[in-house]
């Protein structure tokens, strides 16, 4: 690979780490890119999709996505696959064997760890995969490095015949910084060459590839010892020397500008001997790595004495405000600086959107007794919160169906009268939920499935999926027919209902019927995500305050446009106190879905404007 040449100063761009990865893919001559959306990695593919020279796709899950990239690499293309940390769990079946095969065209796996869990179900450290799957791991510390290292990853992949992992974290993906791109590569596309001894991983072939992989590990260890991405930055205060990588590098530099730093870019295989030499030049060595003590463990095993997770937290970011008190303590200093992040105030928890089609579902679920409800990953996970409290489990993509099946089969005598339900969105169903449904029908489970089809991947920003009928570019393509799909997976046609989730009586009727029947059933909702163009707003509503009785039924809908204006405590005829909540509707936010009007007995929720006014606005 040619060394990237810097371009002119006026080409400084202000872009995020995710966009930098996309530009690197373009400039590296990548021709196939795939992903399943997931925070914080989603924008990588969205940016790549803007380059017509690169084939891009939203794949149906991360395993499929990685396999598409693998196929493209074997066909001679440079290929990139992006996913969030938990996505690698899904893709790992392919990854663990592809590492034996290697790569023909550069094969780059960009993984974004959600350090601090801003929008994830766990905080796993993807650097483990480098060790587990024998892959080199590159760890950029900002957007410029994300650009440079992604460029480099393609060349490294081809040179050492190995998939390469670029490990990002939220603080790299979503931080914008100044990025200067370099001259694009001219990549010579190779052809597919039949080579079953290498590509067909039956035991006989795979056995022969393992020693080659071990040899590659050795080579990469040597490369790492001397690679310019792993460098020492000298400092005048040698009391502590830091070994660090990724976002933590800049936190260390910010907090301890005079300390010597061993900066890792190619962090696995680790340059153990170079770090040993560095350790000898400082009084104390501190390893600053976010999440797991991986490097620390390897350095300790090599006999290097150091401080690591014994003094630093194992969860969350190692930002300056986290580092300072830990290092002060090590130095025997009192941290007089009291670092308080934020004042103690009310929270603003995320809510379902105004007019979200899931609101009606959770309203019904919170009003049905005797339920065990297995949830899934998506916006509708918010149904676990106030005011619905209508989810009992959330684990992983697609788990609602299979966990519900297990609850059905494993329930006690006392739980026999409970209604077991699964709640899953359209995209999550296609990702890994279909298999669970087939398991339920095949093994005669008794689960009522709510398939919330809003035609998009809502939580990550409304990306297209096979339920949208549109591809990543918004072009028309197959739109999956969920009724037919569920029938094909063995659900009886009469046990499948398609309902409008804004029609509460219909929804209640379908739910009450299906939970009684002791066989698998699916209730499919059919209204679009309000964040997508498919959704059309209706004239807003308001509350007629003279008619509002303060019953608070509408608050159970959980729509954020309905606000309590006044509370009052009254004594009921039976002598008990009752708190009344009178409401109003934020007319500017309301989009007139009418769901709340279903819950209002005194008909106090009325159109905000009369028809004449609305027409007047439209004409204007």
């Amino acid at each position, binding site marked *: 690979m040619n060394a990237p040449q810097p371009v002119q100063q006026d080409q*400084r761009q*202000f872009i995020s780490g995710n966009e930098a990865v996309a530009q690197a893919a373009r400039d590296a001559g990548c021709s196939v890119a795939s992903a399943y959306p997931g925070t914080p990695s989603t924008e990588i593919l969205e940016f790549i999709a803007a380059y017509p020279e690169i084939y891009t796709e939203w794949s149906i899950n991360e395993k499929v996505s990685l396999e598409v990239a693998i196929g493209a690499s074997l066909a001679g293309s440079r290929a990139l696959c992006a996913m969030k940390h938990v996505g690698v769990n899904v893709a790992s079946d392919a990854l663990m064997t592809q590492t034996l095969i290697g790569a023909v065209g550069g094969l780059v796996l960009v993984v974004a760890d959600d350090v601090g869990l*801003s*929008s994830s179900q766990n905080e796993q450290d993807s650097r483990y995969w480098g060790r587990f799957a024998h892959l080199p791991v590159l760890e950029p510390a*900002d957007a410029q490095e994300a650009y440079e290292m992604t460029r480099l990853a393609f060349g490294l992949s081809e040179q050492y015949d190995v998939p390469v992992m670029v490990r990002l974290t939220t*603080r790299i993906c*979503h*931080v*914008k*910084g*100044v990025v200067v791109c370099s001259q694009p590569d001219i990549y010579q596309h190779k052809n597919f060459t039949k080579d079953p001894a290498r590509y067909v991983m039956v035991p006989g072939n795979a056995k022969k590839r393992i020693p080659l992989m071990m040899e590659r590990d050795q080579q990469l260890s040597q490369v790492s010892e001397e690679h310019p991405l792993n460098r020492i930055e000298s400092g005048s205060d040698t009391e502590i020397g830091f070994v660090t990588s990724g976002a933590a590098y*800049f*936190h260390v*530099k*910010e*907090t301890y500008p005079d300390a010597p730093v061993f900066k890792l870019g190619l962090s696995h295989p680790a340059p153990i001997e170079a770090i040993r030499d560095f350790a000898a030049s400082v009084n104390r060595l501190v390893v600053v790595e976010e999440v797991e003590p991986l490097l620390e463990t390897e350095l300790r095993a090599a006999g290097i004495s150091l401080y690591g997770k014994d003094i630093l937290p194992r969860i969350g970011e190692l*930002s*300056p*405000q986290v580092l300072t008190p830990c290092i002060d303590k090590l130095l025997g200093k009192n941290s007089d*600086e009291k*670092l*308080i*992040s*934020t*004042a103690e*105030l*009310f*929270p*603003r*928890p*995320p*809510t*379902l*959107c105004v007019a979200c089609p899931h609101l009606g579902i959770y309203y019904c679920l919170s009003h049905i007794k005797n339920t065990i409800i297995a949830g899934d990953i998506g916006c509708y996970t*918010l149904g676990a919160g*106030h*005011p619905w409290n209508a989810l009992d489990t959330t684990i992983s993509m697609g788990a609602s169906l299979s966990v519900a099946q297990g609850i059905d089969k494993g329930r006690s005598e006392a739980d026999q009268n409970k209604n077991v339900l699964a709640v899953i969105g359209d995209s999550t169903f296609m990702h890994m939920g279909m298999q669970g449904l087939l398991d339920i029908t095949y093994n005669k489970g008794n689960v009522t499935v709510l398939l919330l089809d809003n035609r998009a991947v809502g939580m990550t*920003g409304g990306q297209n999926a096979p339920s949208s009928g549109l591809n990543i570019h918004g072009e028309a393509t197959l739109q999956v027919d969920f009724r037919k799909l569920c029938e094909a997976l063995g659900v009886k046609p009469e046990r499948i209902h398609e309902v409008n989730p804004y029609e509460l009586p219909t929804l209640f009727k379908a739910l009450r019927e299906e939970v009684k029947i002791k066989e698998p059933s699916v209730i499919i909702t059919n209204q679009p995500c309000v*964040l997508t163009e498919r959704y059309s707003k209706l004239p807003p509503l308001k509350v007629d305050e003279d008619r509002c009785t303060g019953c608070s039924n509408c*608050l159970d809908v*959980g729509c*954020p446009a*309905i*606000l*309590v204006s006044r*509370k009052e405590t009254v004594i009921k005829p039976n002598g008990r106190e009752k708190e009344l*909540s009178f409401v109003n509707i934020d007319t*500017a936010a309301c989009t007139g879905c009418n769901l709340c009007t279903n819950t209002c007995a005194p008909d106090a929720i009325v159109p905000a404007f009369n028809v004449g006014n609305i027409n007047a606005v439209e004409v204007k």
Partner: protein
Amino acid sequence: MMTSQKPSLELNSDAVTNILVVGIGGQGVMTAADVLSQAALALGYDVKKTEVAGMAQRGGVVTSHVRFGKQVLSPAIRPGDADMMIAFEPAEALRWHTHMKSGAVVMVNDYPLIPPVVSIGLYDYPDNPLGQLADGSVELHHFNAGEAAIELGDRRLVNSIMLGAIADHLPFSPEILEQALLARFQRKGEALTELNRRAFTLGRQAFNQVDSLATA
């Protein structure tokens, strides 16, 4: 009446300027932070911008850190290090005020936004967030940018108004910020550009009229 003070930060100094932009998802916090960053970028600074935005589109707290100077290392502003804050909501200003340096400029849209968890009575909204901010540690300015935006015809104009309000406090000329703001609307037509120009100007004027509750 507060007069427009030129900030102590100077161009080409080694100091890094730290600006916090805080508010709620959907208010344009991230856009405002982007405009500030683009202005600093145009002046040749190194710039980093980072957000703490769990679920930005869904009414959550959104906080954007903008840092610029000769060289910026960590993207996050440490508590006690912020030179300025643009707060789109008074309680959010209070939430982040431990991040402010002594004497920092705090510009607040004093139009409160009450979340459902407060409205239904699970939590309390602070009685007087501006009063709590006016403890003498910061230079506090506030005005009702929310109402001003609605008067201009669109509540989304709040961010252009707030940028106008802070424009005279930055270590570069307000015109640079205005250019960076209007550049975003170039492709969206003259009408929208003009509307945002008006909003920006209104913000600048509002700043020159507001009372300061406290100065350091």
